[in-house]
């Protein structure tokens, strides 16, 4: 089937070349990082994780969200999703690959990566995260590829695929839970030390992943002969709406506990993000952008007219994705380090090389996604 990825028009190839160019720029700067160290990033001894780990965290969510098309189709027989589960699974594949790449570029000693497997350490959450992410990657590749191949041959997928699908559903939940545990089990990081973390992660994942999937499916619809169907899109839009409401509800819960209890440690990080702390507030504009985009998205999603109309749905989905990226892919990780162990504020903003390396990884993910989607769409066009 992979040969279908080699048969594309001019637009397809120019897109791939653009992505390859971005990848090579990112790789060039990664070589610089390998040579000079993480000093080329904006990270410091106080804010010791930054854009890379935040992207990793955000993308685990996108990967986990594949379950939002797989679960309704396989457990509740939602027929509308039959045609699009493959797109959810392939989105998961490219997201997990990006996650692993972001972990690697964040390492000070990437050549020692295998130490994680050579000296397996079950009490480390990071060890478990690498295990569940690799397993999830494998599950989605195997399931997606076999289901697609069966569809092409107009037969039903092999019997052993079904149990794997069922395993992949709780597995999806596990990857984001374990990722949340990286943060929520650390003493002294009050902003992260909340039992709500895993639930919050899952809710925001189930909003931004399907929102991205809607946008991708609408792009596919205009670029190919494959139509995911209005019902599938609308069902996804409902999922995004519910998940976005729950997600913002959870953020509100954090605000209540912090500001009603008035415990300084619990207020500081939120205060830093939205109002500034001790005169420092580089992230304030980003966090207010999150707030406005999230509320705007919610208005468009809750109103049935704007949710059902494709043009406004697109805007809503874009706003969901952007707002949750700001909240989770930037603010959440950075603010956990602020203030530091001595109550001081050391600020963080990513540097240009850091951003270009991150963009290179996003381009890698986009390239893998493009190739996988090209294969899937070609099969669907062939069968139709």
């Amino acid at each position, binding site marked *: 089937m992979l040969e279908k990825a080699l048969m594309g028009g001019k637009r397809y190839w120019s897109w791939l070349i653009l992505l390859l160019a971005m990848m090579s720029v990112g790789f060039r700067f990664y070589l610089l990082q390998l040579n000079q160290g993480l000093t080329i990033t904006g990270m410091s001894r106080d804010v010791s994780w930054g854009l890379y780990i935040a992207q990793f965290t955000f993308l685990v969510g996108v990967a986990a969200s594949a379950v939002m098309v797989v679960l309704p189709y396989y457990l509740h027989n939602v027929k509308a999703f039959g045609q699009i589960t493959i797109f959810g699974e392939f989105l998961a594949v490219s997201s997990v690959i990006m996650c692993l790449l972001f972990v690697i570029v964040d390492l000070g000693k990437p050549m020692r990566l295998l130490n994680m497997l050579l000296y397996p350490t079950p009490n480390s959450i990071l060890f478990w995260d690498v295990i569940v992410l690799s397993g999830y990657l494998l599950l989605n590749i195997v399931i997606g590829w076999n289901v697609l191949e069966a569809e092409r041959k107009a037969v039903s997928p092999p019997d052993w695929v079904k149990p794997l699908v069922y395993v992949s559903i709780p597995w999806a939940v596990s990857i984001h839970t374990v990722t949340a545990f990286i943060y929520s089990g650390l003493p*002294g990081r009050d902003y992260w030390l909340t039992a709500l973390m895993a639930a919050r992660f899952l809710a925001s994942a189930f909003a931004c992943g399907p929102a991205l999937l809607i946008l991708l499916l609408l792009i596919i619809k205009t670029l190919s002969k494959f139509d995911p169907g209005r019902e599938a899109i609308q069902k996804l839009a409902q999922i995004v709406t519910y998940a976005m409401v729950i997600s913002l509800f959870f953020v509100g819960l954090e605000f209540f506990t912090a500001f009603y209890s008035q415990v300084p440690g619990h207020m500081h990080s939120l205060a830093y993000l939205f109002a500034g702390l001790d005169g420092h507030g580089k992230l304030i504009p980003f966090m207010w952008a999150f707030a406005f985009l999230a509320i705007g998205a919610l208005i468009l999603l809750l109103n049935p007219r704007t949710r059902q109309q494709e043009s406004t749905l697109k805007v809503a989905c874009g706003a969901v994705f952007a707002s949750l990226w700001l909240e989770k892919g930037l603010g959440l990780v950075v603010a956990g380090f602020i203030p530091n*162990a001595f109550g001081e504020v050391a600020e963080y903003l990513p540097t240009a090389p850091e951003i270009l390396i991150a963009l290179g990884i996003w381009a890698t993910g986009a390239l893998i996604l493009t190739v996988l989607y090209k294969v899937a769409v070609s099969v669907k066009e062939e069968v139709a």
Partner: protein
Amino acid sequence: MSKMDRRSFLRFGGLCVLGLGVLSGAEVLAEKQLKAAPASPALVGKKWAMVIDMKKCWEAGKGECRDCILACHRAHNVPDIANPKEEVKWIWTEPYEEVFLDQKQEYTAEGIQGKPFLVLCNHCDNPPCARVCPTKATFKREDGIVMMDYHRCIGCRFCMAACPFGARSFNFRDPRPLLPKLNPDFPTREMGVVEKCNFCAERLEAGALPLCVEACRQGALVFGDLEDGNSEVRTILRSRFTMRRRPELGTGPNVYYAI
């Protein structure tokens, strides 16, 4: 042998390699027998701890004394990095209000207000840094020292997120060119690994007290075994009021401050 086919060549080669292996194994064994155990001078303890008498510390240099810091950093090849974002520190000072954040108040006694307090790794009983490390590069020893293997550390910095005391530093760049003077008796670190105070495990091994303790002219730093009721640290803890940093977190810090 006039002709050797591939199979016999491999067989012969394999035997050679095996022979070399056995030979070196035998050598190691022989060496071990030869070097067997002159009595070890090492200081042994069950739970190493430190008590810092801050009054004595301030008397020393009116708050300007840096003897212990310089001695430690020079001996352990800690680089001199001016940029506070990338500083590497094993032992240093922070003002009282920042070391004991939870004790911060408007009306602190004048004698303590803004005074510098020495901070270092607390060698916790229940160290979160060792719990989160994905490679066991950070680990807790039997004698209580929280130790690091710089050759195993992958630089993921999970330990830095986990340490509630800010005791860990990361080598954002190659530290070697930034050493004021190289101490050939202690390893340097590479770029990309985390490091911190090791309670001078290498000196204890040789029967000496930690260098900071030795360097202090006032004897403000006292090191000893908490499990030994007669140790100097226990004597001070019995008679003086002491504080630890953030005990409410349950990590069990083993650095005590007598005020």
